[in-house]
Protein backbone atom coordinates (compact mmCIF):
# COMPACT_ATOMS: atom_id res chain seq x y z
CA UNK A 1 0.00 0.00 0.00
CA UNK A 2 1.26 3.51 -0.71
CA UNK A 3 0.65 6.49 1.53
CA UNK A 4 -1.99 7.95 -0.80
CA UNK A 5 -3.95 4.72 -0.54
CA UNK A 6 -4.44 5.39 3.15
CA UNK A 7 -6.66 8.24 1.96
CA UNK A 8 -8.22 6.48 -1.01
CA UNK A 9 -9.25 3.48 1.09
CA UNK A 10 -10.81 5.72 3.72
CA UNK A 11 -12.74 7.74 1.18
CA UNK A 12 -14.20 4.52 -0.21
CA UNK A 13 -15.39 3.45 3.23
CA UNK A 14 -16.18 6.79 4.86
CA UNK A 15 -16.79 9.41 2.15
CA UNK A 16 -19.07 11.57 4.27
CA UNK A 17 -17.23 11.43 7.55
CA UNK A 18 -15.34 14.56 8.63
CA UNK A 19 -11.64 14.20 7.95
CA UNK A 20 -10.40 17.64 8.98
CA UNK A 21 -11.76 20.33 11.30
CA UNK A 22 -9.94 23.66 11.37
CA UNK A 23 -11.15 27.12 12.41
CA UNK A 24 -14.68 25.81 12.72
CA UNK A 25 -14.67 24.41 9.18
CA UNK A 26 -15.37 20.71 8.59
CA UNK A 27 -14.11 18.91 5.49
CA UNK A 28 -15.18 15.36 4.78
CA UNK A 29 -13.12 12.60 3.17
CA UNK A 30 -14.65 13.00 -0.26
CA UNK A 31 -13.93 16.73 -0.31
CA UNK A 32 -10.38 16.14 0.90
CA UNK A 33 -9.83 13.43 -1.69
CA UNK A 34 -11.25 15.57 -4.50
CA UNK A 35 -9.09 18.57 -3.60
CA UNK A 36 -5.99 16.39 -3.38
CA UNK A 37 -6.69 14.82 -6.78
CA UNK A 38 -7.35 18.21 -8.32
CA UNK A 39 -3.99 19.55 -7.10
CA UNK A 40 -2.26 16.29 -7.96
CA UNK A 41 -3.48 16.52 -11.57
CA UNK A 42 -2.07 20.05 -11.74
CA UNK A 43 1.30 18.84 -10.45
CA UNK A 44 1.14 15.95 -12.92
CA UNK A 45 0.91 18.38 -15.83
CA UNK A 46 4.36 19.70 -14.92
CA UNK A 47 5.79 16.40 -16.23
CA UNK A 48 8.39 16.23 -13.48
CA UNK A 49 10.44 13.03 -13.25
CA UNK A 50 8.91 10.52 -10.86
CA UNK A 51 10.29 10.94 -7.36
CA UNK A 52 11.08 14.66 -7.74
CA UNK A 53 11.11 16.40 -4.35
CA UNK A 54 8.46 19.07 -3.75
CA UNK A 55 8.88 21.53 -0.89
CA UNK A 56 5.83 21.98 1.34
CA UNK A 57 5.82 25.12 3.47
CA UNK A 58 2.48 25.31 5.24
CA UNK A 59 1.25 25.81 8.76
CA UNK A 60 -0.99 23.00 9.95
CA UNK A 61 -4.17 23.45 7.92
CA UNK A 62 -6.54 21.74 5.53
CA UNK A 63 -4.31 23.04 2.74
CA UNK A 64 -1.31 21.20 4.19
CA UNK A 65 -3.22 17.92 4.26
CA UNK A 66 -4.45 18.40 0.68
CA UNK A 67 -0.96 19.31 -0.54
CA UNK A 68 0.76 16.39 1.18
CA UNK A 69 -1.52 13.80 -0.38
CA UNK A 70 -1.53 15.56 -3.75
CA UNK A 71 2.26 15.39 -3.96
CA UNK A 72 2.25 11.68 -3.20
CA UNK A 73 -0.56 10.85 -5.65
CA UNK A 74 1.43 12.58 -8.37
CA UNK A 75 4.34 10.17 -7.74
CA UNK A 76 6.49 12.95 -6.30
CA UNK A 77 8.27 13.17 -2.96
CA UNK A 78 6.97 15.39 -0.17
CA UNK A 79 9.53 17.51 1.68
CA UNK A 80 7.68 19.11 4.61
CA UNK A 81 9.53 22.25 5.71
CA UNK A 82 9.90 23.47 9.27
CA UNK A 83 8.04 26.79 9.22
CA UNK A 84 10.17 28.19 12.05
CA UNK A 85 13.45 27.78 10.16
CA UNK A 86 15.37 30.93 9.33
CA UNK A 87 15.69 31.95 5.70
CA UNK A 88 19.16 30.49 5.23
CA UNK A 89 18.07 27.11 6.58
CA UNK A 90 14.97 27.04 4.35
CA UNK A 91 17.09 27.86 1.33
CA UNK A 92 19.60 25.21 2.38
CA UNK A 93 16.95 22.49 2.60
CA UNK A 94 15.42 23.34 -0.76
CA UNK A 95 18.86 23.36 -2.40
CA UNK A 96 19.95 20.21 -0.64
CA UNK A 97 17.01 18.21 -2.00
CA UNK A 98 16.95 20.15 -5.28
CA UNK A 99 13.25 20.93 -4.97
CA UNK A 100 12.04 22.44 -8.24
CA UNK A 101 8.52 22.94 -6.98
CA UNK A 102 7.36 24.68 -3.81
CA UNK A 103 3.87 24.59 -2.32
CA UNK A 104 3.68 27.53 0.04
CA UNK A 105 1.16 28.96 2.49
CA UNK A 106 0.17 32.50 1.51
CA UNK A 107 0.93 33.46 5.11
CA UNK A 108 4.61 33.25 4.18
CA UNK A 109 4.31 35.89 1.48
CA UNK A 110 6.85 38.14 3.25
CA UNK A 111 9.66 35.61 3.27
CA UNK A 112 8.91 33.93 -0.05
CA UNK A 113 11.05 36.35 -2.09
CA UNK A 114 14.02 35.57 0.15
CA UNK A 115 13.45 31.83 -0.17
CA UNK A 116 13.47 31.80 -3.96
CA UNK A 117 16.01 34.55 -4.61
CA UNK A 118 19.34 34.01 -6.30
CA UNK A 119 20.36 30.43 -7.08
CA UNK A 120 17.32 28.71 -5.55
CA UNK A 121 16.39 25.51 -7.45
CA UNK A 122 12.67 26.40 -7.26
CA UNK A 123 11.09 26.86 -10.70
CA UNK A 124 7.37 26.60 -9.92
CA UNK A 125 5.41 27.88 -6.94
CA UNK A 126 1.86 27.03 -5.95
CA UNK A 127 -0.15 28.57 -3.13
CA UNK A 128 -3.67 28.95 -1.81
CA UNK A 129 -3.70 32.61 -2.85
CA UNK A 130 -2.11 34.72 -5.54
CA UNK A 131 0.98 36.20 -3.90
CA UNK A 132 4.21 37.67 -5.21
CA UNK A 133 7.48 35.73 -5.46
CA UNK A 134 9.71 38.77 -5.77
CA UNK A 135 10.97 37.49 -9.13
CA UNK A 136 9.66 38.58 -12.53
CA UNK A 137 10.34 35.13 -13.95
CA UNK A 138 8.55 33.21 -11.20
CA UNK A 139 4.83 33.49 -10.87
CA UNK A 140 2.86 32.02 -8.00
CA UNK A 141 -0.13 30.00 -9.11
CA UNK A 142 -3.10 29.87 -6.77
CA UNK A 143 -4.29 26.28 -7.09
CA UNK A 144 -5.36 25.05 -3.69
CA UNK A 145 -8.98 25.90 -3.63
CA UNK A 146 -11.30 24.18 -1.24
CA UNK A 147 -14.46 26.00 -2.22
CA UNK A 148 -16.87 23.23 -3.02
CA UNK A 149 -18.01 24.41 -6.41
CA UNK A 150 -14.53 24.22 -7.85
CA UNK A 151 -13.88 20.61 -6.83
CA UNK A 152 -13.94 17.89 -9.50
CA UNK A 153 -16.97 15.66 -9.47
CA UNK A 154 -16.26 12.90 -6.96
CA UNK A 155 -17.93 10.23 -9.08
CA UNK A 156 -15.65 10.92 -12.04
CA UNK A 157 -12.44 10.30 -10.11
CA UNK A 158 -10.92 6.85 -10.27
CA UNK A 159 -10.21 5.50 -6.82
CA UNK A 160 -6.93 3.86 -5.91
CA UNK A 161 -5.25 4.64 -9.22
CA UNK A 162 -1.79 5.19 -7.78
CA UNK A 163 0.99 2.82 -8.63
CA UNK A 164 1.46 0.28 -5.90
CA UNK A 165 5.15 0.51 -5.16
CA UNK A 166 5.88 0.50 -1.48
CA UNK A 167 9.65 0.70 -1.67
CA UNK A 168 9.77 4.04 -3.42
CA UNK A 169 10.71 7.21 -1.61
CA UNK A 170 7.61 8.98 -0.29
CA UNK A 171 8.92 11.80 1.86
CA UNK A 172 12.05 13.45 3.19
CA UNK A 173 11.81 14.78 6.73
CA UNK A 174 14.67 17.08 7.72
CA UNK A 175 15.98 16.86 11.27
CA UNK A 176 18.71 18.94 12.83
CA UNK A 177 20.14 16.31 15.16
CA UNK A 178 23.04 17.27 17.39
CA UNK A 179 25.17 19.06 14.78
CA UNK A 180 22.55 21.67 13.97
CA UNK A 181 22.82 21.16 10.20
CA UNK A 182 19.53 19.80 8.86
CA UNK A 183 19.79 16.41 7.19
CA UNK A 184 17.03 14.70 5.25
CA UNK A 185 15.63 11.39 6.50
CA UNK A 186 14.35 9.41 3.51
CA UNK A 187 11.18 7.48 4.25
CA UNK A 188 9.57 5.09 1.81
CA UNK A 189 5.85 4.38 1.45
CA UNK A 190 6.49 1.09 3.23
CA UNK A 191 8.23 2.86 6.13
CA UNK A 192 5.31 5.24 6.64
CA UNK A 193 2.40 2.92 5.94
CA UNK A 194 3.68 0.01 8.05
CA UNK A 195 4.29 2.34 10.99
CA UNK A 196 0.91 4.00 10.53
CA UNK A 197 -0.92 0.67 10.59
CA UNK A 198 1.08 -0.52 13.62
CA UNK A 199 0.22 2.69 15.48
CA UNK A 200 -3.47 2.43 14.60
CA UNK A 201 -3.38 -1.11 15.97
CA UNK A 202 -1.84 -0.44 19.37
CA UNK A 203 -3.71 2.83 19.96
CA UNK A 204 -6.92 1.02 18.97
CA UNK A 205 -7.86 3.90 16.67
CA UNK A 206 -11.18 3.73 14.85
CA UNK A 207 -13.24 6.03 12.65
CA UNK A 208 -14.82 7.38 15.82
CA UNK A 209 -11.52 8.82 16.99
CA UNK A 210 -10.51 12.44 16.61
CA UNK A 211 -7.20 13.93 17.70
CA UNK A 212 -6.45 17.54 18.62
CA UNK A 213 -3.44 18.44 16.49
CA UNK A 214 -1.07 20.90 18.15
CA UNK A 215 2.11 19.31 16.82
CA UNK A 216 3.29 20.55 13.43
CA UNK A 217 2.72 18.14 10.53
CA UNK A 218 6.29 18.75 9.31
CA UNK A 219 7.47 17.06 12.52
CA UNK A 220 7.41 13.26 12.22
CA UNK A 221 5.21 12.87 15.32
CA UNK A 222 2.71 15.34 13.84
CA UNK A 223 2.90 13.47 10.54
CA UNK A 224 2.02 10.29 12.40
CA UNK A 225 -1.16 11.93 13.70
CA UNK A 226 -2.01 12.92 10.11
CA UNK A 227 -1.51 9.47 8.62
CA UNK A 228 -3.06 7.43 11.43
CA UNK A 229 -6.27 9.43 11.48
CA UNK A 230 -6.65 9.57 7.72
CA UNK A 231 -5.85 5.86 7.65
CA UNK A 232 -8.50 4.85 10.19
CA UNK A 233 -11.20 7.19 8.92
CA UNK A 234 -10.85 9.37 12.00
CA UNK A 235 -10.74 13.14 12.31
CA UNK A 236 -7.96 15.69 12.60
CA UNK A 237 -8.97 18.68 14.73
CA UNK A 238 -6.32 21.26 13.93
CA UNK A 239 -5.68 24.07 16.39
CA UNK A 240 -2.47 26.10 16.14
CA UNK A 241 -2.97 28.15 19.29
CA UNK A 242 -1.00 26.13 21.84
CA UNK A 243 0.71 29.26 23.02
CA UNK A 244 -2.66 29.89 24.67
CA UNK A 245 -3.39 26.50 26.28
CA UNK A 246 -6.88 27.51 27.43
CA UNK A 247 -7.91 27.93 23.80
CA UNK A 248 -6.75 24.38 23.04
CA UNK A 249 -8.61 23.00 26.04
CA UNK A 250 -11.78 24.81 24.93
CA UNK A 251 -11.43 23.25 21.47
CA UNK A 252 -10.92 19.81 22.98
CA UNK A 253 -14.18 20.20 24.86
CA UNK A 254 -16.25 21.75 22.08
CA UNK A 255 -15.06 19.26 19.45
CA UNK A 256 -15.25 16.23 21.77
CA UNK A 257 -11.82 15.02 20.76
CA UNK A 258 -10.89 11.53 21.85
CA UNK A 259 -7.10 11.93 21.79
CA UNK A 260 -4.37 14.39 22.76
CA UNK A 261 -0.78 13.93 21.60
CA UNK A 262 2.09 15.96 22.95
CA UNK A 263 5.78 16.23 23.77
CA UNK A 264 6.97 16.67 27.38
CA UNK A 265 6.89 20.48 27.34
CA UNK A 266 3.25 20.44 26.17
CA UNK A 267 2.28 18.39 29.22
CA UNK A 268 4.42 20.48 31.56
CA UNK A 269 2.78 23.67 30.35
CA UNK A 270 -0.71 22.18 30.55
CA UNK A 271 -0.15 20.80 34.05
CA UNK A 272 1.72 23.83 35.34
CA UNK A 273 0.15 26.77 33.56
CA UNK A 274 -3.47 26.06 32.67
CA UNK A 275 -6.80 24.74 33.95
CA UNK A 276 -6.04 21.38 32.27
CA UNK A 277 -6.11 19.30 35.47
CA UNK A 278 -9.46 20.81 36.48
CA UNK A 279 -11.22 19.95 33.23
CA UNK A 280 -13.41 16.88 32.86
CA UNK A 281 -12.79 16.30 29.12
CA UNK A 282 -15.44 13.54 29.07
CA UNK A 283 -14.92 12.56 25.42
CA UNK A 284 -11.16 12.18 25.78
CA UNK A 285 -10.10 8.54 25.71
CA UNK A 286 -6.32 8.75 25.62
CA UNK A 287 -3.10 10.76 25.73
CA UNK A 288 0.04 9.91 23.81
CA UNK A 289 3.46 11.26 24.75
CA UNK A 290 6.62 11.06 22.67
CA UNK A 291 9.32 13.47 21.52
CA UNK A 292 11.74 12.88 24.35
CA UNK A 293 11.72 11.37 27.81
CA UNK A 294 9.02 12.74 30.11
CA UNK A 295 10.12 12.64 33.72
CA UNK A 296 8.25 10.12 35.89
CA UNK A 297 7.12 12.99 38.14
CA UNK A 298 5.25 14.59 35.24
CA UNK A 299 3.72 11.25 34.25
CA UNK A 300 2.53 10.82 37.83
CA UNK A 301 0.91 14.26 37.77
CA UNK A 302 -0.89 13.35 34.54
CA UNK A 303 -2.06 10.05 35.99
CA UNK A 304 -3.32 11.80 39.14
CA UNK A 305 -5.21 14.42 37.12
CA UNK A 306 -6.85 11.90 34.76
CA UNK A 307 -6.91 8.48 36.43
CA UNK A 308 -9.51 7.10 34.01
CA UNK A 309 -7.80 8.08 30.75
CA UNK A 310 -5.32 5.87 28.89
CA UNK A 311 -1.79 7.25 28.81
CA UNK A 312 0.50 5.91 26.10
CA UNK A 313 4.18 6.66 26.60
CA UNK A 314 5.97 6.14 23.30
CA UNK A 315 9.46 6.33 21.86
CA UNK A 316 10.73 6.74 18.35
CA UNK A 317 12.89 8.63 15.90
CA UNK A 318 12.35 10.26 12.55
CA UNK A 319 14.68 7.59 11.20
CA UNK A 320 12.13 4.94 12.30
CA UNK A 321 9.08 6.63 10.70
CA UNK A 322 8.84 7.22 13.75
CA UNK A 323 7.36 4.75 16.23
CA UNK A 324 9.68 2.17 17.82
CA UNK A 325 8.17 1.33 21.21
CA UNK A 326 4.99 1.88 23.19
CA UNK A 327 4.07 1.32 26.83
CA UNK A 328 0.64 -0.32 27.22
CA UNK A 329 -1.41 1.98 29.52
CA UNK A 330 -2.31 -0.88 31.84
CA UNK A 331 1.41 -1.39 32.52
CA UNK A 332 2.19 2.29 33.15
CA UNK A 333 2.12 2.18 36.95
CA UNK A 334 4.19 -0.97 37.18
CA UNK A 335 6.69 0.09 34.52
CA UNK A 336 6.81 3.83 35.19
CA UNK A 337 9.93 5.26 33.54
CA UNK A 338 9.94 2.62 30.80
CA UNK A 339 9.39 3.32 27.09
CA UNK A 340 7.70 -0.04 26.78
CA UNK A 341 7.95 -2.76 24.17
CA UNK A 342 8.36 -2.91 20.41
CA UNK A 343 5.45 -1.74 18.25
CA UNK A 344 3.79 -4.50 16.17
CA UNK A 345 5.97 -5.76 13.34
CA UNK A 346 9.20 -4.24 14.66
CA UNK A 347 12.10 -5.84 16.55
CA UNK A 348 13.91 -3.80 19.19
CA UNK A 349 17.17 -4.92 20.80
CA UNK A 350 19.45 -3.48 23.43
CA UNK A 351 22.79 -4.25 21.82
CA UNK A 352 26.53 -3.75 22.01
CA UNK A 353 28.55 -1.80 19.46
CA UNK A 354 28.46 -4.72 17.06
CA UNK A 355 24.69 -5.12 17.31
CA UNK A 356 24.74 -8.26 19.47
CA UNK A 357 21.88 -8.39 21.92
CA UNK A 358 22.90 -7.83 25.52
CA UNK A 359 21.55 -9.71 28.56
CA UNK A 360 18.74 -8.35 30.71
CA UNK A 361 19.81 -5.36 32.76
CA UNK A 362 22.92 -4.51 30.74
CA UNK A 363 23.11 -1.03 29.25
CA UNK A 364 23.52 -0.90 25.49
CA UNK A 365 22.24 0.90 22.42
CA UNK A 366 18.66 0.58 21.14
CA UNK A 367 18.78 -1.12 17.73
CA UNK A 368 15.67 -1.31 15.53
CA UNK A 369 14.83 -3.78 12.78
CA UNK A 370 11.62 -3.59 10.81
CA UNK A 371 9.70 -2.18 7.85
CA UNK A 372 9.81 1.24 9.49
CA UNK A 373 13.59 1.68 9.29
CA UNK A 374 14.46 4.57 6.97
CA UNK A 375 15.95 4.22 3.51
CA UNK A 376 18.84 6.46 4.56
CA UNK A 377 19.93 10.08 4.81
CA UNK A 378 19.69 12.27 1.73
CA UNK A 379 23.22 13.32 0.72
CA UNK A 380 24.77 12.14 4.00
CA UNK A 381 26.28 8.77 3.21
CA UNK A 382 28.85 8.93 6.04
CA UNK A 383 26.28 9.52 8.74
CA UNK A 384 24.03 6.95 7.14
CA UNK A 385 26.74 4.30 7.46
CA UNK A 386 27.08 5.13 11.15
CA UNK A 387 23.46 4.48 11.98
CA UNK A 388 22.29 1.97 9.34
CA UNK A 389 24.13 -1.35 9.50
CA UNK A 390 22.75 -4.43 7.71
CA UNK A 391 19.39 -2.71 7.46
CA UNK A 392 19.17 -2.14 11.21
CA UNK A 393 18.95 1.29 12.79
CA UNK A 394 21.38 2.14 15.59
CA UNK A 395 19.47 4.86 17.42
CA UNK A 396 22.18 6.43 19.56
CA UNK A 397 20.00 5.95 22.63
CA UNK A 398 21.35 3.94 25.55
CA UNK A 399 18.95 1.69 27.41
CA UNK A 400 18.46 -1.55 29.28
CA UNK A 401 15.72 -4.19 29.30
CA UNK A 402 14.12 -5.60 32.40
CA UNK A 403 13.23 -9.25 32.93
CA UNK A 404 9.84 -8.72 31.27
CA UNK A 405 11.42 -7.20 28.16
CA UNK A 406 10.43 -3.61 28.97
CA UNK A 407 12.97 -1.04 27.89
CA UNK A 408 14.30 1.84 30.01
CA UNK A 409 16.26 4.64 28.36
CA UNK A 410 19.36 5.64 30.26
CA UNK A 411 20.37 8.56 28.06
CA UNK A 412 21.59 9.64 24.67
CA UNK A 413 25.00 8.39 23.68
CA UNK A 414 25.81 12.01 23.00
CA UNK A 415 24.15 13.30 26.20
CA UNK A 416 26.67 12.01 28.66
CA UNK A 417 28.66 14.60 30.59
CA UNK A 418 32.26 13.65 31.32
CA UNK A 419 33.06 15.44 34.54
CA UNK A 420 36.20 14.85 36.60
CA UNK A 421 36.66 11.38 35.13
CA UNK A 422 33.04 10.37 35.76
CA UNK A 423 30.33 9.80 33.15
CA UNK A 424 27.02 11.37 34.16
CA UNK A 425 23.70 10.86 32.45
CA UNK A 426 21.98 14.16 31.72
CA UNK A 427 18.62 12.44 31.96
CA UNK A 428 19.29 11.20 35.48
CA UNK A 429 20.13 14.68 36.76
CA UNK A 430 17.15 16.30 35.01
CA UNK A 431 14.72 13.76 36.41
CA UNK A 432 16.13 14.24 39.90
CA UNK A 433 15.70 18.02 39.81
CA UNK A 434 12.14 17.67 38.51
CA UNK A 435 11.27 15.66 41.62
CA UNK A 436 12.00 18.76 43.70
CA UNK A 437 9.04 20.94 44.66
CA UNK A 438 7.97 23.75 42.42
CA UNK A 439 10.04 23.00 39.31
CA UNK A 440 8.32 23.41 35.96
CA UNK A 441 11.20 22.55 33.62
CA UNK A 442 14.92 21.94 33.70
CA UNK A 443 17.71 21.55 31.18
CA UNK A 444 21.05 20.03 32.15
CA UNK A 445 24.17 20.08 30.01
CA UNK A 446 27.94 20.12 30.27
CA UNK A 447 29.99 23.31 30.09
CA UNK A 448 33.76 23.59 29.73
CA UNK A 449 35.60 23.57 33.05
CA UNK A 450 39.37 24.00 33.41
CA UNK A 451 39.57 21.51 36.27
CA UNK A 452 36.81 18.98 35.61
CA UNK A 453 36.89 18.97 31.84
CA UNK A 454 33.14 19.46 31.85
CA UNK A 455 31.02 20.83 34.67
CA UNK A 456 27.34 20.07 35.07
CA UNK A 457 25.07 23.05 34.58
CA UNK A 458 21.33 23.16 35.24
CA UNK A 459 18.99 25.85 33.97
CA UNK A 460 15.70 25.74 35.86
CA UNK A 461 12.24 27.26 35.40
CA UNK A 462 10.18 27.51 38.57
CA UNK A 463 6.45 26.92 38.56
CA UNK A 464 4.34 30.05 38.99
CA UNK A 465 4.32 31.17 42.59
CA UNK A 466 7.34 29.04 43.48
CA UNK A 467 10.82 30.28 44.15
CA UNK A 468 13.24 27.40 44.54
CA UNK A 469 16.79 28.70 44.81
CA UNK A 470 20.31 27.40 44.24
CA UNK A 471 20.84 26.22 47.80
CA UNK A 472 17.56 24.32 47.85
CA UNK A 473 18.22 22.57 44.54
CA UNK A 474 21.79 21.72 45.47
CA UNK A 475 20.71 20.26 48.81
CA UNK A 476 17.98 18.27 47.10
CA UNK A 477 20.36 16.84 44.53
CA UNK A 478 22.90 15.98 47.22
CA UNK A 479 20.25 13.97 49.03
CA UNK A 480 19.48 11.92 45.92
CA UNK A 481 22.60 11.75 43.75
CA UNK A 482 26.23 10.85 44.04
CA UNK A 483 28.34 13.94 44.73
CA UNK A 484 29.87 14.06 41.24
CA UNK A 485 26.39 14.21 39.69
CA UNK A 486 25.27 17.33 41.59
CA UNK A 487 25.20 20.35 39.25
CA UNK A 488 28.09 22.74 39.82
CA UNK A 489 26.28 25.64 38.19
CA UNK A 490 22.59 26.33 38.69
CA UNK A 491 20.75 29.16 36.99
CA UNK A 492 17.11 30.14 36.83
CA UNK A 493 15.21 31.35 33.78
CA UNK A 494 11.69 32.51 32.96
CA UNK A 495 11.47 29.95 30.18
CA UNK A 496 13.53 27.56 28.11
CA UNK A 497 13.82 27.89 24.33
CA UNK A 498 11.75 25.43 22.33
CA UNK A 499 11.58 24.32 18.74
CA UNK A 500 8.31 24.90 17.02
CA UNK A 501 7.36 21.30 17.70
CA UNK A 502 7.64 22.06 21.42
CA UNK A 503 10.83 20.14 22.04
CA UNK A 504 13.49 21.74 24.21
CA UNK A 505 16.06 23.47 22.02
CA UNK A 506 19.16 22.67 24.02
CA UNK A 507 21.52 23.87 21.34
CA UNK A 508 19.92 27.32 21.45
CA UNK A 509 20.03 27.30 25.25
CA UNK A 510 23.73 26.41 25.25
CA UNK A 511 24.42 29.19 22.74
CA UNK A 512 22.50 31.64 24.94
CA UNK A 513 24.48 30.56 27.98
CA UNK A 514 27.87 31.21 26.37
Amino acid sequence: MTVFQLLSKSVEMFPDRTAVTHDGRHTDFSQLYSAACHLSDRLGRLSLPEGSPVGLLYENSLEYVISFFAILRAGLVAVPLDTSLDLDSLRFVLSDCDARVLLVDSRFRRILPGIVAGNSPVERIFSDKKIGSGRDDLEVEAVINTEEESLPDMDSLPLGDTEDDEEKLAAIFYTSGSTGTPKGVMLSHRNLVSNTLATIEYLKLTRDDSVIVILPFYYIYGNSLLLTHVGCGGRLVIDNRFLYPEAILDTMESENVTGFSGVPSNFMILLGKSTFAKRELPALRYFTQAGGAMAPEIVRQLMDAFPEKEIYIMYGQTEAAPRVTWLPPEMLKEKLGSIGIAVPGVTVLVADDKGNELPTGKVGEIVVDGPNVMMGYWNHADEEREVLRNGRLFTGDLAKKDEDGYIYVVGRRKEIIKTGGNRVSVKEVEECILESNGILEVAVFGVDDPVLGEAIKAVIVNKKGCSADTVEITDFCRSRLAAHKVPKIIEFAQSLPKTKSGKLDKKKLKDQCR
Partner: protein
Amino acid sequence: MAQKEKIRKDIRDFITKSFLTGDENENLSDSDSFMKEGIIDSTGVLELVSFLEKQYGFAVKDDEMTPGNLDSIDNLVIFISGKLG
Protein backbone atom coordinates in the same frame (compact mmCIF):
# COMPACT_ATOMS: atom_id res chain seq x y z
CA MET B 1 -6.33 57.86 29.10
CA ALA B 2 -2.77 58.78 30.08
CA GLN B 3 -2.44 55.51 31.96
CA LYS B 4 -3.58 53.50 28.92
CA GLU B 5 -1.09 55.25 26.69
CA LYS B 6 1.70 54.56 29.16
CA ILE B 7 0.67 50.91 29.24
CA ARG B 8 0.60 50.81 25.44
CA LYS B 9 4.13 52.19 25.26
CA ASP B 10 5.40 49.81 27.95
CA ILE B 11 3.99 46.82 26.08
CA ARG B 12 5.35 47.87 22.72
CA ASP B 13 8.79 48.50 24.25
CA PHE B 14 8.79 45.05 25.84
CA ILE B 15 7.60 43.25 22.69
CA THR B 16 10.13 45.11 20.57
CA LYS B 17 13.02 44.43 22.92
CA SER B 18 12.13 40.78 23.44
CA PHE B 19 10.85 39.60 20.06
CA LEU B 20 11.27 42.06 17.21
CA THR B 21 13.85 43.90 15.17
CA GLY B 22 13.49 47.61 14.55
CA ASP B 23 11.87 47.16 11.12
CA GLU B 24 9.37 44.68 12.44
CA ASN B 25 8.37 47.10 15.21
CA GLU B 26 7.45 49.71 12.62
CA ASN B 27 5.22 47.21 10.82
CA LEU B 28 3.48 45.90 13.94
CA SER B 29 0.14 47.56 14.50
CA ASP B 30 -1.59 47.61 17.86
CA SER B 31 -4.30 45.28 16.61
CA ASP B 32 -2.01 42.69 14.99
CA SER B 33 -2.30 39.17 16.45
CA PHE B 34 1.04 38.03 17.90
CA MET B 35 0.05 34.47 17.12
CA LYS B 36 -0.97 35.01 13.48
CA GLU B 37 2.06 37.18 12.79
CA GLY B 38 4.31 34.53 14.36
CA ILE B 39 5.82 37.04 16.77
CA ILE B 40 5.53 35.04 19.96
CA ASP B 41 5.73 31.31 20.61
CA SER B 42 4.60 29.36 23.68
CA THR B 43 7.84 30.18 25.47
CA GLY B 44 7.41 33.85 24.64
CA VAL B 45 3.93 33.93 26.18
CA LEU B 46 5.42 32.80 29.49
CA GLU B 47 7.97 35.62 29.25
CA LEU B 48 5.20 38.10 28.49
CA VAL B 49 3.15 36.93 31.49
CA SER B 50 6.20 37.18 33.72
CA PHE B 51 6.79 40.74 32.49
CA LEU B 52 3.17 41.74 33.19
CA GLU B 53 3.29 40.32 36.70
CA LYS B 54 6.57 42.07 37.55
CA GLN B 55 5.70 45.35 35.85
CA TYR B 56 2.17 45.76 37.18
CA GLY B 57 2.20 43.73 40.36
CA PHE B 58 -0.77 41.47 39.65
CA ALA B 59 -0.99 37.74 39.10
CA VAL B 60 -2.15 36.42 35.71
CA LYS B 61 -4.36 33.43 36.42
CA ASP B 62 -4.12 30.31 34.29
CA ASP B 63 -7.57 30.83 32.80
CA GLU B 64 -6.69 34.43 31.90
CA MET B 65 -3.94 33.29 29.51
CA THR B 66 -6.17 33.54 26.46
CA PRO B 67 -5.81 35.21 23.06
CA GLY B 68 -8.56 37.64 24.05
CA ASN B 69 -6.39 38.99 26.86
CA LEU B 70 -2.86 38.62 25.54
CA ASP B 71 -2.71 38.30 21.78
CA SER B 72 -2.22 41.91 20.66
CA ILE B 73 -1.13 45.23 22.07
CA ASP B 74 -4.76 46.45 22.04
CA ASN B 75 -5.94 43.33 23.91
CA LEU B 76 -3.16 43.69 26.47
CA VAL B 77 -4.00 47.35 27.14
CA ILE B 78 -7.63 46.45 27.87
CA PHE B 79 -6.64 43.45 29.99
CA ILE B 80 -4.06 45.34 32.05
CA SER B 81 -6.32 48.38 32.53
CA GLY B 82 -9.05 46.08 33.76
CA LYS B 83 -6.74 44.38 36.22
CA LEU B 84 -5.44 47.67 37.57
CA GLY B 85 -8.96 49.01 38.04
